[in-house]
């Protein structure tokens, strides 16, 4: 499993959640934990969670009315 850090531009939430789920699965599947690797994934998870929470925090909606194009 390889994980990429979210880009600065923004986070693809779908992708991020998928990665977080992968990390959770890794912990669930590895009973004899490789602590070094586990620590690496915890760090990765923390970054992803932070990015996700930022994206999921309250952001005002943008509402714009568009005039109809004239029917030809």
């Amino acid at each position, binding site marked *: 499993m390889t994980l990429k850090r979210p880009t600065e531009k923004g986070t693809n*939430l*779908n992708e991020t*959640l998928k990665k*977080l*789920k992968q*990390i*959770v699965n890794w*912990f*669930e599947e590895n009973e004899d*934990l490789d*602590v070094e690797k*586990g*620590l690496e*994934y*915890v760090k990765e*998870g923390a970054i992803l*969670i932070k990015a*996700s*929470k930022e994206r*999921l925090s*309250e*952001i*005002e*909606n*943008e*509402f*714009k*009315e*568009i*005039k*109809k*194009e*004239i*029917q030809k």
Partner: protein
Amino acid sequence: MNTPEIFSVSQYLDKVNFVLKGERAKIIGEISAIQMYDGRSYLYFSIRDKKDQSIARCFMWKNDLKISGVELRDGLEVIVTAYPSVYKPNGGFSLQVEMMEMVGEGALQLAYEELKKKLTLKGLFDESRKREIPKFPHKIGLITSKSGAVINDFLSNIGKFGFEISFVDSKVEGQDAIKDLLSAIKTLKNKNLDVLVIMRGGGSLESFLAFNNETLVREVADFPVPVLTGIGHDKDIPLISLVSDKNVSTPTAVSNLLNSGWKEAISDVSLYGEKIFSYFQSSIFDTFRLAEDTLLREVDSIGSRIKIISEGLSYDKKNLIVGFENIQNSVSEFLRESGKTIELSSPERQLAHGYSIIKNQGKIIKSVKNVKRGDELDIMLSDGIIHSKSI
């Protein structure tokens, strides 16, 4: 006194037509004298008054007829939306028909059933055609009426997830809504959207005319991104709701559906966070606990092993000392015995008993064969050497 203005025929007809255009009206009558003119973009027909047989000639663009979704036939009762005009080349009076709709619940029901059957056979309502509404929609195209409760319900329930809503106001009532809705769809078709939302409140089959229109249904089916409809209905589900990728019945339900992925993500992120840290924490603690147990066990085991080794060492030391002493004794004994033997077998000791040793040029003579005449011989006795010569 001003002289009345004098018009040319053409100028006057233009003036009349301008005024007549403002006389747009809905007129009810029965269809007759249809002239389709194959290959041309327009057609003519007449509408006749059922009571007194009054008649009016009608002109209509074939595209408008298609949009109206009415199967034209003699005797069909319709309502046309039209304005009057005078055709300048021949002075003929006609109604310029913009839209046409069928009359009566029975006719509408029949048309609805027929179109539903036709589009079902064409596979437009198949589940396999349905596209998934994105889990995290961001750019939303919205078509509904600006006035009324629908848009307010939608906006007051949509979550603050940074949605970009591109709204196009449209009529949603009756046959007049068809062109408006088509225009709104066309406007949003080329916009970068994640999902298109079309909403209206509930109503009778007649008020849903536009939403059962074939052209509109096909436009929705061909829309480049998934379409979500929120159209209330009583008995007959509007065909636009059947063709859309997902249909819910109220604007609040539309908002909830658009919010759902985001809300789910909030709880998922918290859950994943908790899981990762608790797994890691418990794993680390488990590892440390295991390491501690192992270490303690090992310390005990090392202690006892050191004891065994140390005991072994002192035992070995004792054995070594004893062994060494034994060897030393054996060696001493051996040396003593050897000395005795050597002493007993010493040639010098034999000389004392009267034996002698004869040497010829330093070599001991063991046989007469080793002596020649004239050899000088040394005869060793216990107390001296006799120098002699062989004769």
